């Protein structure tokens, strides 16, 4: 049983007109086997929360804590966080030319597991995980994310999660840009991993669509850099009905 605790987290980014505060005191606790949906309008700071947990250098934490089973995550380097059991499925996965997917996956698995996986076992494991996500085996020899479609990139993010077996996974708009078929495959990948592990999931999304596939235990409405309201799955249904207007005071942001 693990716990990821975010306490009064304040984060700013450097802009042309000086530092700008994006997160203004986020409090959130996720435990193993729980799935929390974080929903909010564009610009509310959802992705900043995701990147701050992973340790992207662009985001400066000015106050607050992130604790993984009591350990200070913010004191860890990016790679240490991953090895401690945190995983971020990125909204925009990065292309790394010249580095093959298979080499990358093996390097990552070796790092997070603390030893190189046995070759025979590993090949089988990757093959199986790729097949579960309906990924053509030929992708293993392609450069990381290079020339992948949006859907292919998202499948590979979930593939990495399945192979690296994190304690907590932050899925940053993993549903964005996916057609229905791809959404189904990606969601199945997440659900399979949930079923086979004790992972705690932070599912960041703008839309309620993915929640039809991945059932949340808790739903948090994220507005203006903090959690505005928390509730059960019924909160997502209310958002689907009424949008974010109750929280933002404008009608512009309609979740679909």
């Amino acid at each position: 049983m693990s716990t990821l605790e975010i306490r009064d987290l304040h984060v700013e980014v450097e802009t042309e007109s000086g530092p700008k505060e994006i997160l203004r005191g986020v409090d959130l606790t996720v435990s193993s086997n729980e799935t929390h949906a974080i929903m909010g309008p564009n610009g509310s700071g959802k992705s900043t929360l995701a990147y701050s947990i992973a340790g992207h250098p662009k985001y400066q934490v000015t106050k607050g804590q992130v604790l993984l089973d009591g350990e200070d995550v913010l004191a860890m380097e990016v790679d240490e966080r991953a090895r401690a059991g945190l995983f971020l499925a990125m909204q925009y996965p990065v292309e790394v030319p010249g580095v093959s997917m298979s080499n990358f996956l093996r390097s990552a698995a070796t790092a997070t597991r603390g030893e190189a996986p046995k070759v025979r076992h590993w090949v089988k494991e990757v093959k199986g995980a790729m097949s579960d996500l309906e990924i053509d085996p030929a992708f293993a020899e392609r450069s990381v994310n290079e020339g992948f479609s949006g859907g292919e990139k998202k499948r590979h993010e979930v593939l990495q999660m399945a192979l690296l077996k994190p304690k907590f996974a932050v899925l940053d708009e993993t549903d964005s840009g996916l057609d229905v078929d791809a959404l189904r495959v990606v969601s199945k990948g997440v659900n399979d991993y949930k079923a086979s592990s004790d992972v705690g999931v932070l599912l960041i999304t703008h839309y309620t669509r993915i929640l039809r596939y991945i059932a949340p235990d808790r739903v948090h409405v994220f507005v203006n850099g903090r959690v505005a309201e928390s509730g059960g799955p019924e909160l997502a249904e209310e958002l689907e009905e009424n949008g974010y207007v109750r929280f933002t005071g404008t009608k512009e942001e309609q979740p679909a």
Partner: protein
Amino acid sequence: MTAQDSDLAGPVASTGGGTTTAPGSPVLDVDPGIKTASSPKTAPWEERHTSYDVEAFEVPRGREEQWRFTPLRRLRGLHDGSASVSSPAGVVTVSVQAGFGDSASDLAGSGTRLETVGRDDARLGDGGIPADRVAAQAWSSFDRAHVVVVNEARSDDEPLTVTVTGPGEGKVAFAHLQLRLEHHAEAVVVLDHRGSGTVAANTEFVVADGAKLEVVEVHDWADDAVYVGAQHLSVGRDATIRHTSVTLGGDLVRLSPVINYRAPGGDVELDGLYFADAGQHFEQRLLVDHSVAHCRSRVMYKGALQGAEGGTAAHTVWIGDVLIRKAAEGTDTYELNRNLLLTDNARADSVPNLEIETGEIVGAGHASATGRFDDEQLFYLMARGIPEAQARRLVVRGFFGEVIAKVRVPALRDRLEAAIEAELEAINS
């Protein structure tokens, strides 16, 4: 990293320009632009003249197009005739073995041989004629030349290793080497330069009709070495050359390969890999002279640079001149240069030039880009648990991957990968 690409198939056009990245500046990438031939600017090759005689060339002062990137003071007098006065004379030694690395052995059979010849040997000059003063100085000054003759189709499994060793620290040498493939000969050759000293050299690659040469020219000199070399590549009818140039060591290395097509059907690939550390100046000046019809050229050079804080900058220069003359109908050419700045205090100059005098071509294009190490790539890899030093290695290995993958001598590929790792260790330690 950003890129500028242009593909030209218009009737008459030329492009020229440059990319410079100075310390502290962000990624810069200058579109070379496209100009018509009526532009008043004189293309570099129009000024180009050739001669075996050193006195046919003015002593460079540093402003000349050919020399403007080269720190002349570091040439130890190779450019102004004072080198042999100020330093004792030495010799460059050349040896040839069959195989590469641990498996190399003495040459057997008569199909391949090393000859040491005098200046009057009629074959010398078949590759090309010097086009700058240092190359002409080398031609005017050497005593004996080495000629490696291949008159057989050698198996890919048995590369030739030609080892060229410098004269030793403090000494100067003028060298002449010709690698000669007779009709329909085939060979994979590792031309391995190492050692110390100051060297000016001409290297001829004479590839006869139907012959096929795959050569990796490695410059892995000691820290003190200065090497200024002209490579003359002569391409016979339907001949193939794949030349990979690798520059890893030396204080200053300047290479000027020129492709001379002798008849239609020539096919040349020039690849390059260079890795410059603090204080090193590595310069590559290419001229692909499409003077006859239906020839092909592909150029792909990749460089990495890492300076040291407070030290002298790492500096690389890449000039890629491609000329398609009026007679060269059916030409197919593309050139690419990419530079990766791993640290501050590094400067990469990249200047592709393309001049096209006939519209009847298959294709012509170029690309040049210089960029900083991509922190987003680093973040992505580290976010998967991969430690920073290893993540950097993966990215740099990936950057050079497509050049190294084309080297067909496995033991040499291993050596190049190890050399790159060793370079990277230096900044991660």
